[in-house]
């Protein structure tokens, strides 16, 4: 099979290229998010208009493309009002927290992998992520659990009963759906055997259901194909749970109870106007991108093409990743146009009594399946032996260190 991946040299112009990769990922991620934001709002409007049989944006620019720009200009020049009895510092802190947490979660998304030919002519695959940390998944969960503070504090500090109700609803909803979200992701972690997102993507680069890869002709197009991604590997239920939970986590319709405009005016951001409102808006769209990206990486193969055949494999990995994220965004919009808002008790019922028990059962199922299934197909990046070896060295090394620190403590 001809390998068409571009292979980069380790050094170019005396610069060590693999160590530049995190910076490329940093600027790439932030640049992509900032560039796509106006586009997202335009896409959402056009898609909803299409689904509701309306014209949609068609006044500003060709096909209404400049509508988002006009909105941004409007938000810049709008009067920045503030309620008199607001808790000023927290009132200003809340929108910044929202945007910060949304952007920070993007740091571990695996955009694609680059292959480098090292000086000793061996090959090294480097994942394009800002931080390729072993707790990648936990990091995303941690940062997205901090997003609650933006909603809660905005609702509280505005000193408005509608805002407060929105904030309370938001905190209860986000806490409830975080659990189901974590359980559905745990199913994937059970099968992949790692929390590192690029390794989870790599674990999907095999045959469906972990059949050993031998290189027979019919196996080649199936390797890393749509059938071997974890949406099928975990038997469909976790991806459904995650998708529902991710919509609830981003406060989007039909789970937009924290800002339910027919009941609470605008919920937690009732008292925010101008750029502070724009920051909440930005935070919501960025976290939509992030949860779609996590969905793509965990369940939909990340940067892998849907079939391992030439015209599809020529497209670089990050393009596939973006296409999958955009699929997620389209799904968000689709649901927003299709479903009415849930009642509050129905929301809690769904989260605690349906999704949480189902997720628990599925984790057990996946754990049993993980014991009996064939070994993971592409285990080349998941070292089984060296780690245990390093574990033993650690255990050998650790006692002297403890003794040393004890000795210095006694001194």
């Amino acid at each position, binding site marked *: 099979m001809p390998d068409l991946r571009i292979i980069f040299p380790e050094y170019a112009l005396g610069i060590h290229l693999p160590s530049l990769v995190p910076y490329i990922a940093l600027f790439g991620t932030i640049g992509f998010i900032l560039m796509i934001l106006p586009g997202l709002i335009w896409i959402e409007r056009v898609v909803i208009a299409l689904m509701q049989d309306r014209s949609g944006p068609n006044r500003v620019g060709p096909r209404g493309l400049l509508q988002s720009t006009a909105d941004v200009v409007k938000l810049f020049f709008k009067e920045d009002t503030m309620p008199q009895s607001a808790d000023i510092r927290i009132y200003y802190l809340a929108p910044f927290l929202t945007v910060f947490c949304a952007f920070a979660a993007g740091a571990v998304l695996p955009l694609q992998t680059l292959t480098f030919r090292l000086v000793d002519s061996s090959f090294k695959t480097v994942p394009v992520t800002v931080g390729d940390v072993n707790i990648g998944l*936990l990091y995303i969960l941690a940062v997205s659990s901090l997003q609650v503070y933006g909603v809660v504090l905005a609702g509280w500090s505005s000193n408005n009963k509608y805002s407060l109700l929105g904030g309370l609803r938001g905190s209860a909803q986000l806490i409830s759906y975080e659990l189901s979200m974590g359980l559905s992701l745990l199913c994937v972690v059970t099968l992949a055997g790692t929390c590192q997102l690029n390794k989870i993507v790599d674990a999907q680069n095999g045959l469906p259901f972990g059949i050993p890869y031998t290189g027979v002709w019919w196996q080649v197009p199936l390797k890393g194909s749509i059938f071997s991604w974890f949406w099928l590997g975990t038997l469909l239920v976790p991806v459904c749970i995650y998708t529902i939970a991710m919509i609830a986590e981003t406060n989007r319709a039909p789970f937009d109870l924290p800002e339910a405009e027919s009941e609470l005016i605008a919920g937690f951001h009732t008292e925010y106007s101008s750029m502070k409102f724009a920051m909440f808006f930005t935070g919501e769209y960025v976290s939509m991108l992030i949860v779609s990206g996590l969905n793509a990486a965990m369940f939909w193969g990340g940067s892998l093409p849907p079939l391992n055949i030439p015209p599809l494999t020529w497209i670089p990995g990050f393009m596939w990743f973006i296409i999958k994220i955009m699929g997620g965004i389209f799904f968000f919009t689709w649901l927003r146009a299709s479903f009415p808002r849930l009642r509050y008790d129905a929301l809690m019922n769904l989260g605690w009594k349906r999704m949480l028990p189902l997720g628990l059962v599925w984790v057990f199922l996946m754990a049993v399946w993980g014991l009996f299934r064939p070994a993971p197909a592409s285990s080349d990046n998941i070292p089984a032996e060296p780690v245990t070896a390093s574990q033993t060295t*650690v255990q050998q*090394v650790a006692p002297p260190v403890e003794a040393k620190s004890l000795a210095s403590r006694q001194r």
Partner: protein
Amino acid sequence: MATVLFWILALVSVIASISMVTTKNPVRSALFLVVTFLCVAVFYVILSAQFIAAVQIIVYAGAIMVLFLFVIMLLNLGTPQALVERGSLQPAFAVVLGISFAVTLVMSGSFVTLPAVAAQPEVYEPLGTVRGIGINLFDPKQPWLFPFEATSILLLIAVVGAIVMAKRKV
């Protein structure tokens, strides 16, 4: 790099802890506690215990403190003037216990050995990762499997007990 980060965050966490105690506003007090938790999480990362750091943020900053805030807002506590008691022995006890705790810390040499511990994170690195903790916790050869499972059953009993206490008619 790690040392500079440590001292900056040490300052921040100490200031946040003191503000947490001294602030009259309960919401701000809770927020200062969150700042302290985040600083502690970064300390864990500096000590190469990434898993504990993530769990610290998820459990304490992300879940427990949100519930605290939730309750504070639900009760709508303002500045509690009535809670300041007159003629209580609490401040005297607090001062005595605080001084004795500080003396214990200094005597045990925690401050003296800090640079030495911070200088050797490489040795502990695989122990702090997800894989390291998993292997050490669930390996039957290690002694931690039984205590871990026993603790989890204890927590389960606590959860069931809380539900039974809160809801008499199930």
